Each structure stands twice: as structure tokens, then as C-alpha cells.
């Protein structure tokens, strides 16, 4: 028997049916067709499927879909405010912090979770916070710079 789940996903009321063993990632992608959350490993090692659940950064491949009952899920989709890009998204584009782009939604979600907690991270803090997200294209240089620049911008340091 399928389980009926009600949650808030990217600010919208969402209802879905899932099997007990189905992950949040599978439901997001295959049931709700929200493919903006990516799967790179399915074992919680790459962070491509990162989402924020009730303010906490999680790999959606490691969370059962049934667990989000009554909770709030934010994916990369809700980082932007309608057509207005979040400063992180804008910096990623301006700094070329993505090449193939498949890890990018996960990095943005993880970076936003960091900046929601700490608007003045050191380079080291950014690197360790993002150590759960794999990128094979960029060598992380431009990603780390983008996050640091966005933090400075949000602090009002630079425009």
C-alpha cells in the first residue's frame, strides 16, 4: 500500500503517494517530476541531491519520502525569488562557477544553507561546509570564490 504524504515543497503545498522504501529524491524526481534536484550517487557521497528540510541541509537520497510529512522542503528551484536570481546564483553565473552544471543545484542549496547560518565564513569554513558536495569540473576554486563574494555582498561589503 502506498503512503499519502503532505508537505510543503519549494513554498507550495504538495501531496504525493509513495512506497515506504522510496527516497525523497526518487519522489522529487520521478513522482513530482521536479528534476532540478540531481542524483550523482544515491549513497549520500556527492551532494548533488542536496535539499533543505525544515532548515537542515540533507541529501535527499538518504531521506525517506515519508519522513517529510508536514515538513518544509527547499530545493534549488526555490533559491530564486520568481524570476529574480538569488545573489548566489548570480555570482555563480558571473564567476563561471559551473561548467557542466549538474552539481550546481546541490552546491547552491548547500551554500545557501551555509550563508543562512553564517554570513561571514572564512575560506576554510566554506571549503569544509561544501566538502559534502562533489564537483569534478571546476576544482572548486570559482565555487568557493563565488560563495565568499556572495557572503560579502549580503553583508553589504561590496555591491
Amino acid at each position, binding site marked *: 500500500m502506498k503512503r499519502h504524504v503532505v508537505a510543503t515543497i519549494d513554498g507550495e503545498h504538495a501531496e504525493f503517494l509513495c512506497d515506504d522504501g522510496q527516497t525523497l529524491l526518487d519522489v522529487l524526481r520521478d513522482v513530482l517530476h521536479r528534476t532540478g534536484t540531481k542524483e550523482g550517487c544515491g549513497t549520500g557521497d556527492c551532494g548533488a541531491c542536496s535539499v533543505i528540510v525544515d532548515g537542515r541541509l540533507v541529501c535527499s537520497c538518504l531521506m525517506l519520502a515519508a519522513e517529510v510529512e508536514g515538513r518544509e522542503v527547499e530545493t534549488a528551484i526555490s533559491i530564486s525569488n520568481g524570476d529574480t536570481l538569488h545573489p548566489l546564483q548570480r555570482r555563480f553565473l558571473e564567476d563561471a562557477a559551473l561548467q557542466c552544471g549538474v552539481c550546481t543545484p546541490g552546491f547552491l542549496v548547500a551554500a545557501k544553507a551555509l550563508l543562512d547560518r553564517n554570513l561571514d565564513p572564512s575560506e576554510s569554513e566554506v571549503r569544509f561546509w561544501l566538502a559534502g558536495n562533489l564537483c569534478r569540473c571546476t*576544482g572548486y576554486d570559482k565555487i568557493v570564490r563565488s560563495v565568499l563574494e556572495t557572503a560579502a555582498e549580503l553583508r553589504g561589503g561590496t555591491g
Partner: protein
Amino acid sequence: MSEEAKFRWIGTRVVRPDGVDKVTGRATYGADFALPDMLWGRVLRSPHAHARILSVDTSRALAHDGVEAVITSQDLPDIPSEEAFVGEQPTNFRELSHNVMARGKVLYHGHALAAVAATTPEIAASALDLIEVDYEVLPHVLDMPAAMAASAPSLHRDLEPAGFAAGATVPPNVSRRIELGHGEPDQGFAAADVVVEREFTTKPVHQGYIEPHACLVQANPDDDITIWSSSQGHFMVRAYTAKLLGIELSKVRAIPAEIGGGFGGKTTVYLEPLAAQLSRISGRPVKMVMSREEVFRATGPALGTRIRVKMGCKQDGRLTGAEAVLHYEAGAFPGSPVQAGAMTMFAPYELEHVRVTGYDVLVNKPKTAAYRAPGAPMGAFAVETVIDELAEKLEIDPIELRLRNAARKGTQAPFGPRYREIGCVETLEALRSHPHYTAPLGPNQGRGVALGFWFNAGMQSSAGLNVNEDGSVSVISGNPDIGGSRASLALMAAEEMGIDYEKVGAWIADTASIGFSDITGGSRVTFATGMAVVEAARDVKRQLCERAAAIWEVEPERVKWVEGEARLEGEPDREPLGLVDLAQRAARTGGPISGRASLTARGVGMAFGAHICDVEVDPETGRVEVIRYTAVQDAGRAIHPSYVEGQMQGGAAQGIGWALNEEYVYDEDGKMCNPSFLDYRMPVASDLPMIDTVIVEVPNPRHPYGVRGVGEVPIVPPIPAVVNAVHAATGVRYFDLPLSPPRVLAGIEAAADRGA
């Protein structure tokens, strides 16, 4: 600097055309497609490294509720041996077919031998357990000495080794011998003051793209097949799928998805022919997505190597001779990049006497696939480590030693031709003058440098340029954008047309909508497809001038396209006609204005890169930390500097991982023990420092904007740069990868024992 001023768009850091889609989760990658009534396909894989398939019984799987099709090699045509005509490395369609679906024997752990399509992924997975396979397990070989031993089991009984003299004794499992070079190395060694000879080994490593292979295929009853998949070339996907199914290329349309990384690993197919056959049988669309474990076990890694290098040098730092013997693992089918390894390893140096012999060796591991400058990083590891040792022995600065021998215009490459305009010396000089090279080091820290070479590819490309009704321009090409090539093509189009970058759209068309285009590989898209875009733009400008001439009723020769508008020569007062004017009048002046170009790109600009690496080695644990890194590279001309830097940084990071952590670990049964990102340790953000970049620009005179390919050479210098830095920090020479903490510690302790 005056040269740069003449460009309006080339060299600027614009936002890429596909950027917003990729930061908002809208971009659709291989696994993001779905169709109504779609089935899910899964692959049954061999649990043995080498076994004869005695029988496969699929009846129970087929009878399982929700299973709509099951295939084995019996459901695919047994195709004849034929060299593949697309792709990056030499491939044989028959071998490709046997790799995609084992026939008669399984040749590695993870080798596909059956596939099912079912209504859900879970049913497909459980149906695999219902397929009954009877195996006769055969002895297997995992390393090259074992594979080449006289008593070794043969992977392919019908192997016809190439490159051996008639009557020569050929060891088992060697598919090919190659030899290249010029002069007599022994003469060179006799003239040398110092000779160093060393042997090196490297382990298999994976390209490590974050997106697993994925496709969706729909076969119609009339045998038209549509493929949505992520690859480095949808024309390659079309050709390989059609050939393996024995149908005409015109029946197949391949639609490129966004690609989530490839690095050479997506220059071949694994799933598409299986999904197509499952769809033909079931009559429903079939989606297949690999798990990460399948990616590790069954897709082409860069395989292991064993390399012996001997180099001689005079006291004054002139190299007198060089010789190498390469053994490269091909995996279960012939086709390692040993040829490229042999051609590139000594390529940065002027050598009177140089000879390289190479062997392509079969082992019971997955078939190797291209990985960024395929074959070159291993050769560079060997050569650049020996150069470092020569420099140490001769007490010559390692960059100076390289400069004294650096290839220049006119130098004969080990692979034959003489170099044209190259930037080897300029790259080394920029490396030497970088402040990093003279920065102070702390305790347990060391600095290494290395130089690398890659040919770059030209190959075939097509492009179209349409003037839209509103005067904007659409650039259409046939190459998947793996790291910003839409931006570089749009920049060249804007520059050529003399219009705003924002007026240019850049799109990648499917195989039915643009002329043939070779793969996105060989660092060739900005170079070769860029050349096609420029030609298409020039075609359009010629047409625009003709339209303006028709409107003005003058000879077309009098009209020139300047700064985005048609101007009439000799009549400065005549109001020019811009793109909007001419687009709006197109219907009355001859119809739509569109240009196109299909070409084989000649005049490839070869690439050199040189890196400096600082490490700190923990003497207690052997852990190596890269603390500072600088990459210098000749890009010819950087069309979009940020994405050139990105290639340099990404290649450096992959090379650092290869040097320090990454390796396939096999158990004695031939099963990979670490098929996950947890156990196959790629660099994460906290493992690396910032990677500083310096772009050197020695323009390639045979490209309209001076472009050289930039994607591959950055992975060539990192391994020796890291290894030389570890030597500088510890005093220990290492010859076997990776420099994992236990290996580094063992080296330090052995040196201490010798000292004591």
C-alpha cells in the same frame, strides 16, 4: 595589448547562454527526461571477472508481473568486425557490441549480459534476480605481467596482434605493439654525463563525472528510433546505436541532453543500444539510468600503466637521448591510449635521439575509455619525474633545465612533424616569473614543477547561423556543451557579426537538424566548431551585403559589413542598413537569411601547460596536503577567459586526485572493492587550495581568432608536479601511484632506515 583592443567580445567574461537554466535546476540532463507509458530498463552484470556463458534462461524474468522485455546478446545482431568511423579512440563496432552486451564470454566483473524493461525501476531490479545464468568460471588476469605470462589465459582467442614483425614471439593478450621516434638513443646515452632510468606504475582511475550515464529511447513500429541521452556526441550515439542494431543511421535521431561531465568517458555508449532494443521489443519508451556502482564497475576508466623511462643529459643541461617502454592496460577489449602516451611523453623537448615502444595489453577489467588527454598524464608522470631527478643531479633549476631543452617552432616532435607556432617556451617563462616560484616554504613543505603537452583535435564540425525576423541571431551547432562552449561560440559569432552578445542565441541541434559533427572531445569545440561558426557568420555577412546591394541597387562588391551594419563604400552619407532592417526586408529581398558551414578543421594549435605545486607532508602519517598551486597554459587566445581558467583548475584538481588518492582497488577475484564516491576518493573542496591560473596567449595563426584547444592539457602536468613536490618535501622519490598516506609513509620510513 593593442591586439586586444581590436576585439569587442573576444576575451570578455560574459554570462553563458545556458547559465540561468543551470543555476535554477531547469536544465535537463540525461536522466531528466520522461515519456508517458515509459518503462525502466536495468542491466544484469557479470559476477565473475572471466567466465564462459553456458546458458541464460530469461523465462522466469519475462513471466514476472510488470516485465515487458528481456534481452541478451541473442537479441542483438552478431555484427562483423569493422573499425568505427566516429569517436575519439579507435573502436571496433564488433568489440563495442560485445562490450555493451557480452556474447559467449563475460570478460570483467560488471560486464553486461542481459537487460530487462519493466514498469517500475524496482520491478526491473527484482527481475534481474530471476534471470538464470550458468557460467563456467575461467582463470582471469588483472595485471599486465600476469596477462603477458606464457601460461596466461587468453581473453580473445581470435586476437590478431598488430605491429609485430613476422615470426616475432608475441606474449598472450598483447593486441598491438607501437614504436616511434628518431635517432639512436644509445648514442645519446653514450654522450651523456648523467643517465637516469626508472620504472613507474599507475593504477586505473575513473573520469568521475557526477552525472551517471542515462538515456531515454523510443522505438516506433516503423523502426524510427529517437534517443534522448547525455553524451559527448549525439552523432556518435546515433552511429553506435544504429550500427549495433544493424539499422540505417537515417532511422535514428539522437537528441542531446545537457551533459553532467564526461572528460572522455562519454565518448562511447553503454545503454542506448540496449534501451533501443528493449523499446523495439516492448513497443514502449525505455529509460535507463546507471547507478554510481555500475558507472565504476562497467564504464571505461583510464586504466593502469607500467612505464620505463631512460634519459641522458650533459653537464650543461642538454638532453642527449630518451627512451621509453610503455605497457598500457586496454581492459577487456583492445584500445588503450598507448599511442597517444608514446607520442606525447617527450613532446615538450627537443631530442636528437628518442624512441618509444608501446604495448596494448588486455586484462579482465572494463574496457578503457578516453580520459582527458588520454594516455598523456601517465607518460608525463614518468618523464617529468626523471627530468626532475636529472635537474637535481646536475644542480640545475628544474624550469631552467626544461627551458634549455624546450620544443620551439621547427623542433621535430617525437611523433614526426616539426612544430609550427607553439608556446612551450613562453609557458615555461611565465611559470618561472610567477611569484609562486620563489615564495618561501615552511618545514615539511616542498615545491614541484612539471610540463605537459597535448596535441588537441580538429575533426569535423558543422554550424548554422540564422538571422531571425527581429534581427537577432541564432547560432546552431552539433556539439554538446560540456563546459561553456555555447558561450565561446556565441562570443565568436557576436565578434564576427559586429553585434551585441545579448543578440546571439546559442543552441545545440539534434542529429536530424544540423550537419554531422564529431564528438565534443580532443579540446576541439571552441577551436573547430568555432571555426565553423565563423565561416557560417561570414556566409551570412556576404548574404547581408548582397541584400543591402539589392535594396540600394548597387554592385554587391561596393557594400561592406562594418560594426554590425551594411555600409556603402564611398557614400558615407548613405544611411547604413543594420540587421533589423535587413531581417525585416528579407522576404522581399530573397527570403530568409541563414548561413552554414560544415568542415574538417585543419591547423590545430598544440597546447603546452606547466604547473607549480607546493605540498606539505605530515611525517607522522604520510598525508600530503596541496597548499598552493599555480597552472600556466598557452590558450592561443582565450575566447572566454573564465572558462579557460576553469578548464585549467578542473584539470589540475583531477590530476591532484590521480596523484594522491584515486585508484581502483581489486580483490583477487577481479572485483572492484571501492565502487562508490566514499571509497573511491576524489578531491573535495576541503582537500584543495585555490588554483591560480596564468593564461599565456601565443595565437594559433591558423584559427580566425587564434584559438588552441584548452580542455585536456591541464591534466598532464599535475601528477609529476605533485610527485616532485613530495620529493622536495621528503627527499624520497616515488615511482608508483597514488601517493596515499601509507605509501608516502613507507617511503619516508625506508629512507630513514637507510639513513640510520
